[in-house]
């Protein structure tokens, strides 16, 4: 089994100059801060080593470091390790290379970080809006600390997401937006040729309730536990 230090040593050997700091605050949990230019190569390397992409987290750390922090969390399942690759991004130029081209699993996570925190992902294959509503204004990023949790911006329906259309003779078979058999409204735009499905586009997050913003702004730890319980009733 790979240990925490073995992994860090491996990364520093393969990518000299990439690692800024490392932390091991608990057993089997590693946080590695790297230089932004290395993000795609380090994440690709981890993925080739068998790490599974879990999620990305964008944090507005204006209160303590003054920067936007982007963390990509990976899990090395066989070694029981959690590796978080962190980078710092300036507010004045919040852009960084996308890892979705090499890691398709990060596609939605990066789109969500863009929607919520305003980080630009250079080279993202599908940089459309994901989690925000169709009439949410552009350049208004809800998870930033200067955005109050109970503020509703004026509607801006021109920002609606454009969903894909297939080439003829294929046609669209829209399953949704109030999806049959799903609790949440979800829109599977299925492309069909005759009776065969040849593709699909998805528009979801109609039920996005902004619970992360609420927890960040107004709740204590024990209250968050009860909020988390009510995310889903099944």
């Amino acid at each position, binding site marked *: 089994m790979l240990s925490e230090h073995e992994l860090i040593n491996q990364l520093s050997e393969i990518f000299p100059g990439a690692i800024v700091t490392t932390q091991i605050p608990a057993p089997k949990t590693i946080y590695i801060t790297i230089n932004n230019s290395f993000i795609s190569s380090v994440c690709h390397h981890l993925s080739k080593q068998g790490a599974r992409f879990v999620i990305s987290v964008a944090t507005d750390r204006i209160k303590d470091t003054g920067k936007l922090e982007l963390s990509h969390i990976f899990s090395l399942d066989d070694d029981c390790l959690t590796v978080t690759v962190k980078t710092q991004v300036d507010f004045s130029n919040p852009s960084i290379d996308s890892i979705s081209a090499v890691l398709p699993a990060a596609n939605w996570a990066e789109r969500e970080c863009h929607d919520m925190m305003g980080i630009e992902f250079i080279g993202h294959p599908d940089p459309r809006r994901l989690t925000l509503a169709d009439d949410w204004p552009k350049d208004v990023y809800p998870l930033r600390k200067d955005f109050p949790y109970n503020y509703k911006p004026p509607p801006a329906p021109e920002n609606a997401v454009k969903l894909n259309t297939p080439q003829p003779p294929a046609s669209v078979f829209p399953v949704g937006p109030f999806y049959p058999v799903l609790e949440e409204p979800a829109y599977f735009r299925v492309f069909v040729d005759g009776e065969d499905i040849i593709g699909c586009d998805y528009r979801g997050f109609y039920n996005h309730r902004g619970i992360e913003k609420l927890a960040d702004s*107004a*709740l*204590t730890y*024990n*209250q968050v536990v*009860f*909020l988390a319980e009510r995310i889903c009733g099944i």
Partner: protein
Amino acid sequence: MLISKLKEALICFKNLRVTLPYPTQPANPAEGFRGRLEIDLNKCIGCGACANACPPRLIIVTNLDSRRTFDFILGKCTYCARCADVCPEHAITMSQEFELATADKSDLNISVELNMVKCQECGTAFTTKRIVDKLVAILPEKIEIEPTAIDWLTLCPDCRRIKEVHRLTEVEK
């Protein structure tokens, strides 16, 4: 294939109808069920622990004109029972009631009003009378002093600080 269908039919026939005859007969929830919130108004001392703990933050505390009001907007209640957990007087209990449908959400609201005590020095109302009474009743034993020695209980925290500073500087002299 046919055998599968026969087995399935057999399971269905063995169990027939399982629906409970509710609402023609009452359906009583288990003991310990977290139903509608009930407050024993005689026990509440107005400490506000419930307001701090409530996850949907439906308990609104207002201090006005020497009265502290707790408004429970029970339309938002998630029946988590945290308020009942943290109440030091066990004034809040969760009943067995779950039939709470109503045409007007404010039917469920509860308001608790308590008299407050004014600071002897500056006159601001800073706590409820019941809290002061309770402290007068239990503190002398807990901190082993004479009951009359706790006159600082009727001072607000700011005046208490000022008084203590005076006392310490006097002692230094």
